């Protein structure tokens, strides 16, 4: 069974803390994505990566960075967490040349910054 695993489901962090959200996929997919979901704003793309060590900014990259040292792992980093980064974060992966129905999502990470 294919899987995208987000290591932390629920986190509470303090303002200014550094936060790591980890995502691992076991399907050998080239493309990986980080989205955040907020009420009324839907799924907004933060960063994506189409290969190891490659990254591209999405719609809302400010305040975030990413790391893709290995194909299966895509990490989202909040260098200095702020309260407006309280959200639900979704990781996704897609194989090269996807047909759309092969995107796989993780279960989500709920981050609260206090």
């Amino acid at each position, binding site marked *: 069974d294919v899987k995208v695993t987000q290591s932390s489901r629920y986190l509470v962090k303090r303002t200014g803390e550094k936060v790591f959200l980890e995502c691992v996929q076991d399907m050998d997919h080239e*493309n990986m994505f980080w989205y955040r979901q907020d009420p009324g704003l839907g*799924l907004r793309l933060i960063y994506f990566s189409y290969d190891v060590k490659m990254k591209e900014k999405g719609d809302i990259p400010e305040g975030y960075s990413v790391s893709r040292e290995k194909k299966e792992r895509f990490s989202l980093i909040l260098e200095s967490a702020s309260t407006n980064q309280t959200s639900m974060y*979704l990781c*996704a992966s897609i194989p090269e040349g996807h047909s759309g*129905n092969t*995107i796989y999502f993780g279960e989500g990470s709920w981050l609260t910054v206090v």
Partner: protein
Amino acid sequence: DQQVKQNSPSLSVQEGRISILNCDYTNSMFDYFLWYKKYPAEGPTFLISISSIKDKNEDGRFTVFLNKSAKHLSLHIVPSQPGDSAVYFCAASARDDMRFGAGTRLTVKP
């Protein structure tokens, strides 16, 4: 600026009637369009998709229509069922990129 827009945040229909969810996009490079359904506390699940070379795709009660000249797509659910109540996200895809709309919350009343 959002490249994929769903201008209706919510929609309520009666069981058995048609639900029509709309989506607009701005980037002409998108070549694949998808609808996802999401229940609370779960990740989105794939519903139906359409390639830019088609204008209609049907799967059971779900039909997606694409109007490329208008950069508009819609999802029709006929007949609507209470179990269809969820948030529906429209997505548009290029080769290495995928963008989502803000979602429309569909409520199907018994």
